[in-house]
């Protein structure tokens, strides 16, 4: 656990550093909304920068959550299941815990960026409006659903394979996203991680209804598959 927290902390530090070193110079004349580090300031056409900025931190978050579901189910969860606790309880509890965890991680990143901004006197303006709120919500929901997807995969395969798959998916969705987001193809609604980058969504003109439907569809599929697998898996 200490290693996971350490990696997440270092990851946050690097992410905040990336913002100030690489992203900020691109927006010299624009006030950067500090509480929205994850969703603003990345142009959707710049794959490498987006990968560094949009994917790297996501990778740290998936590593932090690796194995959580399996550990719970094979440990304390057995005591609950054997007492007849509803399977749906595990699904709801799991998602709620992920959302809380992702919110805390987000808060940690914002706090760290504010501290860094003060210490190095970077003069970044702090702004928070409805646009930033939507962007932050989208980041939290998207990352939460992807981590939930990772935990669902852990019910079917070893946790290391699950984390690898979700990270490869994250990288591919950002690389492909550069090409498909602006086009008419429906693939853009499967390139999930891009939804966490609000500026990308804004610039590409992707439909909000499509995004919400995609997120809801994925969430429903994850819930159903998790339910099915919790019911039929072996607790070894």
């Amino acid at each position: 656990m200490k290693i996971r927290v350490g990696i997440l902390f270092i990851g946050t530090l690097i992410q905040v550093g990336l913002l100030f070193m690489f992203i900020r110079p691109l927006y010299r004349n624009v006030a950067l909304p500090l509480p929205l580090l994850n969703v603003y300031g990345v142009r959707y056409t710049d794959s490498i920068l987006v990968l560094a900025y949009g994917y790297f931190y996501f990778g740290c978050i998936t590593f932090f959550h690796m194995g959580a579901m399996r550990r719970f189910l094979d440990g304390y969860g057995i005591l609950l299941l054997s007492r007849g606790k509803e399977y749906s309880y595990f699904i709801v509890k799991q998602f709620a815990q992920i959302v809380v965890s992702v919110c805390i991680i987000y808060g940690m990143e914002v706090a760290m960026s504010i501290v860094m901004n003060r210490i190095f006197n970077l003069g970044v303006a702090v702004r928070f409006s409805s646009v930033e709120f939507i962007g932050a919500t989208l980041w939290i929901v998207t990352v939460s659903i992807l981590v939930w997807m990772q935990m669902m995969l852990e019910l079917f395969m070893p946790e290391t394979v699950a984390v690898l798959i979700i990270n490869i998916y994250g990288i591919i969705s950002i690389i492909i996203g550069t090409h498909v987001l602006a086009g008419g193809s429906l693939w853009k609604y499967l390139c999930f991680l891009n939804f966490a980058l609000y500026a990308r969504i804004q610039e590409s003109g992707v439909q909000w209804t499509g995004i919400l439907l995609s997120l809801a569809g994925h969430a429903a599929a994850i819930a159903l598959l998790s339910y099915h697998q919790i019911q039929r898996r072996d607790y070894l």
Partner: protein
Amino acid sequence: MESVELRHVTKKIRSRLVLDDITYQFEPGTIYGVVGPNGSGKTMLLRMLAGLIHPSEGEVMINGRLLHKDISFPGNMGLIIEHISLLPYLTGRDNLRALARIRKVASEKDIEDALLRVGLEKVMDSKVKTYSLGMKQRLNLAQALFERPELLFLDEPTNALDERGSESIRNILLEEKKRGAMIVLTSHHMDDIQIADVQLKMAEGRLY
């Protein structure tokens, strides 16, 4: 009273046979002791009885109901298996309270009685993270007992306990038997299952 029946139960895990065509009827009010070396299939047998693993072939019947089809788990069961860990940031008493909220059959007195029976009276209000290995094992037994289950599946219940602790566990199990519970316990050592009415041996997934 609950009875459990295994009918030609076979379990394969990644092509390895861990339970091999086991047919056996477990009766209420009886202590069954299963002994065997590491990897003989004792723990798998216990998990099969508890509904934690699915048979590759065969059936497990609980009171005439087919496990995993008619019911997901045996209804009235107490369980100790490896890797089960209670919540470290709660006290022993609060851990049992949290579990009691699921079935709603145990009172506050049942919780306290169980903790007293296993000898945790002095530490029941301390956080579990401060417990020694032996105390955690006692608490595990308390969580298995406090709802007065009719089925008790105990995987090496005397693990991490000294001779005095093991003796007190054996006495508790004899009391549970008098109450009418069916108990299946496993061990590496024959000495640990001396209290059993029926002693069974396991080797290479087969029950003798």
